[in-house]
């Protein structure tokens, strides 16, 4: 025979004073867990969202990122007219040789960071249509002008349209802001490629981005470049390249799990306390239930279910709090920045709560409730019925 859920559910609410602390502490565990995972998720998404399946990224073999890669003008000559690479309407190959440099810039709130400054060609801009101008104008080739991602401009000093900053000996003027549609380009600044090479005194480039006529040509292009011993180049689809650039997320995920586990242990003690007290106060009720014919295991199950309900309530509250935090960040345009160890540069990100994160948070809550209520429930089930009835 099963006890009705209603009995337990009502108990949770009737004794709200005792349960509220447990519920809130479980909610905190879940909030911390979900938000940590959402940060990691946001970091992953900040680069995973990038790339067109028809684009290929070409960097030097052995370089994990564009910023540490060097590719030469000779290599560019050798590959630009390969048949796999698509042509535009004017018959020009759709390939761009970019120069990526990291420059040290002060943040608004003090401190400083390395920012990715990309020297990009007209073809490079065609290949990345997700980057759109939102304010000011694009840079003029041949001028020392930069266009900054709006999300970066909000974080760094002297990035308003019309302002300028110095890097090395050269002064760069901000002439516009762009939006990268939540891609990795949201963590970049762009300028003219040739101008960038002159500013940073570089002969070579960092990477090539090209469009292939057919996604199957990625493999063909890789084969072709691997065969040529003069070229030590790595060919990746643009999507695959960017999905690899997310190393920083792992420690965050790991830390989220460790923190939530440790906090769960504290919350478990709290849940145990609440359930023990709740059961002690209901000794007569339990006696009555037993006399009415409810079995020991029914009583046990019922109290474990009550603990689970209590903590699930907390879990749901925690999820709601986390979602609220995300909504608030979105509404007020709050963004976070940290260093991506792969590229050694600042990456801007936003909370990204996913359904699996929420479900895992609820599993944490459920574990707290079930494990925390098990010892008190066993105690309740073991109570001799008559003695329990006599209790004051």
């Amino acid at each position, binding site marked *: 025979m099963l006890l009705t859920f209603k009995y337990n559910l009502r108990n949770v609410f009737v004794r709200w004073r005792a349960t509220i602390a447990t519920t809130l502490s479980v909610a905190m565990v879940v909030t911390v867990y979900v938000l940590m995972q959402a940060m990691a998720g946001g970091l992953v998404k900040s680069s995973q969202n990038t790339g067109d399946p028809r684009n290929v990224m070409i960097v030097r073999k052995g370089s994990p990122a564009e910023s540490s890669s060097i590719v030469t003008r000779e290599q560019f000559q050798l590959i630009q007219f390969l048949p796999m690479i698509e042509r535009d309407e004017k018959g020009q190959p759709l390939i761009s040789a970019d120069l990526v440099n*990291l420059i*040290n810039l002060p943040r608004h709130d003090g401190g400083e960071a390395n920012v990715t400054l990309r020297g990009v060609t007209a073809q490079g801009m065609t290949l990345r249509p997700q980057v759109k101008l939102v304010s000011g104008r694009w840079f003029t080739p041949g001028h020392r002008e930069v266009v900054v991602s709006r999300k970066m401009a909000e974080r760094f000093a002297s990035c308003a349209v019309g302002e300028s900053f110095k890097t090395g000996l050269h002064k760069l003027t901000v002439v516009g802001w762009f939006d990268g549609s939540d891609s990795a380009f949201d963590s970049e600044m762009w300028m003219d490629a040739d101008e960038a090479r002159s500013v940073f005194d570089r002969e070579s480039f960092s990477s090539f981005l090209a469009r292939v006529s057919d996604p199957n040509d990625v493999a063909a292009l890789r084969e072709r470049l691997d065969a040529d011993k003069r070229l030590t180049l790595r060919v990746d689809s643009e999507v695959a390249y960017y999905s690899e650039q997310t190393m920083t997320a792992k420690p965050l995920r790991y830390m989220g799990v460790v923190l939530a586990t440790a906090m769960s242990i504290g919350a478990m003690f709290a849940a145990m306390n609440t359930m023990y007290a709740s059961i002690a106060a209901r000794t007569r009720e339990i006696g009555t239930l037993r006399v009415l014919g409810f079995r020991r295991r029914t009583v046990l199950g019922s109290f474990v279910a009550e603990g689970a309900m209590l903590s699930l309530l907390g879990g749901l509250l925690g999820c709601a709090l986390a979602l609220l935090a995300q909504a608030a960040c979105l509404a007020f345009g709050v963004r976070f920045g940290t260093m991506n160890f*792969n590229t050694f540069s600042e990456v801007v990100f936003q909370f990204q709560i996913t359904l699996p994160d929420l479900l895992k948070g609820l599993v944490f809550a459920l574990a707290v409730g079930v494990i925390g209520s098990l010892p008190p429930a066993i105690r309740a089930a073991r109570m001799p019925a008559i003695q329990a009835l006599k209790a004051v």
Partner: protein
Amino acid sequence: MTFASFIAKNALRNKRRAALSILSVAVSLFLLVFLMVFLRLLTHPPDTAGAELRVAVRNKISITQQLPARQRPVIEKIPGVVAVTPFTWFGGIYKNEESTTFAQFATDPLKLREIFAEFKMPDEAYAAFAAERTACVLGKLSADKYGLKVGDRVVLTSSLYPNPLEFKIAGIYSGSQDDKNLYFRQDYLDENSEVKGQVGMWWLKVRSAEDMPRVIEAINKTFENSSAAVRAETERAFQLGFISMWGNISLLVGLISSAVVFTLLLVTASTMSMAVRERLREMAILKALGYQRPMLFAFILAESFGLAAAGGLLGIGGSYCLFTYGDIPKLTNGFISTLEVAPQTVGIAMAVTAALGILSSIMPGLAVMRMSVVQGLKALD
């Protein structure tokens, strides 16, 4: 029966509840100390021996831009400079690791010893390092992690330089801030690199702390209008600049610490209310016997404070012992090499414990003070 024993008896009357409360406070304070120590690591790196005489020189554009080797004799001539070494990041990946797990720098062996005098290594190891071009020295933590010893050969594939390099371990050092790094010779790197005469950074030692500001200014001035303008700064400033790249991570840790403290407060406060509610009748009897309200409040306060203090002692003491005497590199899988529990951290954690004890007694204390004797005697549970 004294008041003290009365309070103690009351606190321990329900031993299980007392134990659970103390444990939950202990777990939370342990976490709090850990988070504060971690936050401190992110914002105030520990001081290193010899740091007050060291200067770091990097390219003004950013640390990833290289510097021309021809700057070295110019820096060496600046009065007050005792020794200069190049310091070039190699970004090597060991065997089948996914990414760079320990740093490798190309240096000048003899100057390295002079500038980083805190490295502990036998004289013959230094001699071997200086004598052989392919020699390197490796930090003890990395040596232990990969089971490497003096005389072994290590091959590293660089993410920056096209050719992998093979090194022979001349010595294993310890005593530095982070005994993980590998140091090898700049001339060996130059020989195997297509770009010659480029270094990553300069590190130097000045004669005395008084010389420091002048030397820094002189270096910055000297290269101000050259093609490779530099930023010279103290080791401390360099570290802080590096750490600020973590960005909002410290804010995040701060927020989590607050969530932990808040949870902790809730749990203790609820336990205290529970304990008092059970005892409303007794409190009413005490009142009827003529005990004044402040006295009753004091009983509750003392009990709650005692429980919090016991939990605090366990949590703070436990974390202190673990972080001070435990094997941190092993526990964190090499992610963190030292966790230093600063006196301030212990102080803050103790203050939180005290506040917890006091705050959690307020609600039940007020309830008892307000309650009338008749109400209390009627109370059932």
